């Protein structure tokens, strides 16, 4: 009974953290919405900004879907499938921002690719007016997420058997994937697609590095208006934020209908050829791209001078590393550890108390970030909370909690009931059962949840900046201010630090269960 009370308390605390979702409604009453909307829509920046926003959002969805279809279609249930599945978490762990910085170094005007093909004298650039480069970057980055979600779906269902049966009946890979796998997997991906759409729609940091500049995307425009010093412009920013919410609603409706286009048709006997020849080369090219981006970031961080058209730095230096401060690293580590740890405790308490109806905890994943941050800001201001480490920690939890919940809930439900029954019949109290049996059984998902929670906290830009009044520097905020500072050497060093911490946490999470339970094969 007391456990249930603790669970309810945990649920209430989480609900309090989610209040910003509701405060979105408040500003509505303060705005003269029709006239503000009219002013936004008639402003000269609106139409091009809307176009680049739609191109980058739809483009990222289409590219992520296509890539994951190509890769998974070619690899699923092949000998290389397991290895690819093991590579995915590592690819996922690459922070969006580090990826964007790498692409910027590769594709900016007079960047490395333009130097490589210098004799051809073609201009290559990111930040194109239509948001195409942003769409490609988001699409590639999110394709790993989709592949991972598809992999998780395939693990759980009986699709492997169906695949095998169809294969023994002489159907080719392409036909099985198209007619059996896609119609069954796609409906289960709707939530993942929603999350991708919400991220692409409202990403300020990726759009800032790779998106159009003149005018920028709607999210960046809304962000800069919200920061404007005149109240009228801020009201416009708030209205634009609400417009982004409406756009998200529209996207959600479309995504929900998507699986209708790919209804299941049982193969009627006609065998068609086709074997996803593109999948493996595309996968190799993408992995190579990641290596090149990593190398560019590394090279720039040790550069003194590196001017066009040189392919390698002309003068080397350690000075960029000298200028790196320790504080952002410590803040990142402490915020990540505390928010992931707190989120795990809260989610475990909620799950353990057996409370149902906690699905709303996933909500922040499907909402644009910007309005949520505005809501958080209004709440901290209303409560008179001083900007600082603790306030930012609470802000991060809004995004860390849902991800931790996403990982722990299925793992918790999959706990072997027979073993728990045996433990109880041996006389373990409920508390002992949790501490000695369940936590041990959950070691792997707990480590995964921690790594994911940490990386979500690591990636937060808007909440860290806004709620922390700029006082808190993390690896992410520092990387962006290095980007604004324009010195590619410092940018390289900072982005490399960001990348290294993200990958380190992931490999720790991967190896920790293996170290802890080295003698228990089934726990790996």
């Amino acid at each position: 009974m007391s456990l249930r009370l603790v669970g309810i308390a945990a649920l209430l605390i989480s609900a309090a953290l989610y209040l910003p979702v509701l405060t979105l409604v408040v500003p509505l009453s303060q705005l003269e919405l029709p006239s503000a909307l009219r002013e936004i829509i008639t402003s000269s920046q609106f139409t091009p900004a809307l176009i680049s926003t739609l191109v980058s959002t739809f483009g990222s969805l289409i590219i992520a879907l296509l890539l994951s279809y190509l890769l998974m279609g070619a690899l699923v249930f092949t000998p290389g499938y397991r290895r690819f599945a093991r590579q995915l978490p590592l690819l996922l762990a690459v922070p969006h921002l580090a990826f964007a910085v790498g692409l910027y170094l590769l594709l900016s005007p007079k960047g490395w690719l333009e130097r490589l093909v210098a004799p051809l004298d073609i201009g290559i650039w990111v930040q194109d007016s239509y948001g195409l480069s942003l769409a490609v970057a988001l699409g590639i980055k999110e394709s790993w997420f989709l592949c991972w979600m598809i992999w998780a779906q395939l693990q759980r269902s009986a699709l492997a058997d169906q695949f095998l049966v169809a294969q023994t009946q002489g159907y080719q890979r392409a036909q099985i994937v198209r007619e059996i796998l896609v119609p069954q997997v796609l409906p289960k991906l709707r939530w993942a697609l929603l999350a991708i759409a919400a991220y692409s729609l409202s990403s300020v940091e990726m759009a800032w590095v790779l998106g159009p500049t003149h005018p920028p995307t709607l999210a960046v425009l809304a962000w800069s208006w919200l920061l404007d010093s005149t109240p009228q412009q801020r009201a416009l920013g708030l209205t634009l934020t609400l417009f982004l919410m409406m756009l998200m609603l529209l996207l959600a409706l479309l995504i929900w209908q998507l699986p209708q286009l790919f209804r299941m048709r049982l193969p009627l006997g006609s065998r068609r050829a086709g074997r996803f020849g593109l999948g493996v080369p595309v996968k190799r090219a993408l992995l190579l791209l990641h290596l090149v981006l990593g190398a560019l970031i590394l090279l720039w961080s040790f550069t003194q001078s590196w001017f066009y058209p040189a392919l390698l730095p002309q003068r080397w230096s350690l000075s960029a590393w000298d200028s790196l401060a320790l504080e952002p690293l410590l803040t990142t580590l402490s915020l990540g550890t505390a928010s992931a740890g707190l989120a795990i405790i809260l989610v475990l308490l909620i799950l353990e108390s057996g409370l149902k109806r906690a699905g709303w905890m996933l909500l922040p994943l499907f909402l644009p970030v910007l309005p949520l941050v505005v809501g958080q800001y209004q709440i901290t201001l209303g409560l008179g909370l001083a900007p600082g480490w603790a306030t930012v920690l609470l802000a991060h939890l809004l995004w860390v909690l849902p991800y931790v919940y996403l990982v722990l809930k299925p793992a918790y439900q999959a706990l072997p009931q027979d073993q728990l029954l045996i433990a109880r019949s041996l006389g373990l109290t409920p508390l002992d059962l949790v501490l000695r049996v369940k936590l041990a059984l959950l070691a792997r998902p707990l480590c995964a949840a921690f790594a994911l929670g940490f990386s979500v906290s690591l990636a937060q830009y808007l909440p860290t900046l806004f709620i922390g009044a700029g006082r808190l520097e993390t690896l992410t905020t520092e990387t962006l201010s290095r980007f604004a500072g324009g010195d590619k050497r410092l940018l390289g060093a900072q982005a490399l630090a960001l990348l290294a911490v993200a990958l380190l946490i992931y490999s720790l999470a991967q190896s920790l269960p293996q170290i802890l339970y080295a003698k228990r094969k089934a726990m790996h």
Partner: protein
Amino acid sequence: MMSKLPLLSAIVLSLPQLITTASAQDWSAIEAQARGQKVYFNAWGGSDVINDYIEWAAERVAQESGVEVELVKISDAAAVVTRIATEFGAGNTTDGSVDLMWVNGENFRRLKQEGLLADSWATELPSAALVDYSLPVTTDFSIPTDGQESPWGGAQLTLIYHPDRLEQTPADADELLALAQQQPGKLAYPRVPDFHATSFLKQLLLDLSNEDAALYSPVTEAEFERVTAPLWSYLDKLHPLLWREASAFPQGIAQMHSLFADGELLMSLSFNPNDAANLMRSGTLPEGVRSFGFERGMLGNIHFVAIPGNSGSKAGAKVFANFLLSPEAQLRKADLDVWGDPSVLDQSKATRDPAALPADTPWLAEPHASWVEPLEKAWLERYGAGS
């Protein structure tokens, strides 16, 4: 630099005599109050040399006066103005999140207009007695400072080029246009409302309008139409000849420096006359770059620090502002190896680095602050949609 040291010590030694006894007593009361206070200094954090300089000043003032200064690196001062206004709006009038901020004329006007600043304090600083009042330190973009902000440094818009790639520098806006016609796609300026972009617009406006007197009074609709008309017809001609045909603009001067260094652009832009020398030393720009200004002169202004009215550490903020204005801090700031930002104390123009803006470049005063907003708005309305 060494030859200046005796002068410096003379100034430091004579410092006590410059302060009247009464204000000295007030000041020691402020110093006592300041001890142990924590000051959040919000300053543009995009430059490492500046950040390092501020960290140095923070350490010095911590040793000397026991004030703990925390640098808050910001990318946009307008956002800080917003934050302060929001705090006031939410009833936080005594313990705001900003104690001292680096401010430009446009944001100073807004802070002052909305009554968000601490009452007159800057002239009471002991170091204020050493300020060179022949510089425009008592007005900021034609707005009287009324002691609500303390001068920190001087700045002048500067164009940076490389003699190997540009033999003849343009002497005015028309020659700049001619250069763009000769070499299309090789010139750029950042996107408005970036601070440097707006400054560049003002420079063009001053040049094209022959420094129209109306620019130094509060803006009116009719005057705006009349004075800016030549600017728009000029930009209509210039934009198709700019980098990427003005379908994209550099995100700031930092990106401009990088594009200039790689040969993508013929010129870069800065508001620090010594920047070319600094950036060459750090390897950001290639060897041999030089600076120049238009014949008529280049836009110049003084930059200031201001204390928000809701700061909880006003005494600490004053002590830090006083240190920033001290001969020790100003001399170090002007050092090319440190920052290279001109002093507001010493008017005698020191010999400048050959890469810096020539010291005899005439100084064009900033237009009245009320021009900034309509200028930016009109630019965005005309060119904001891209092409």
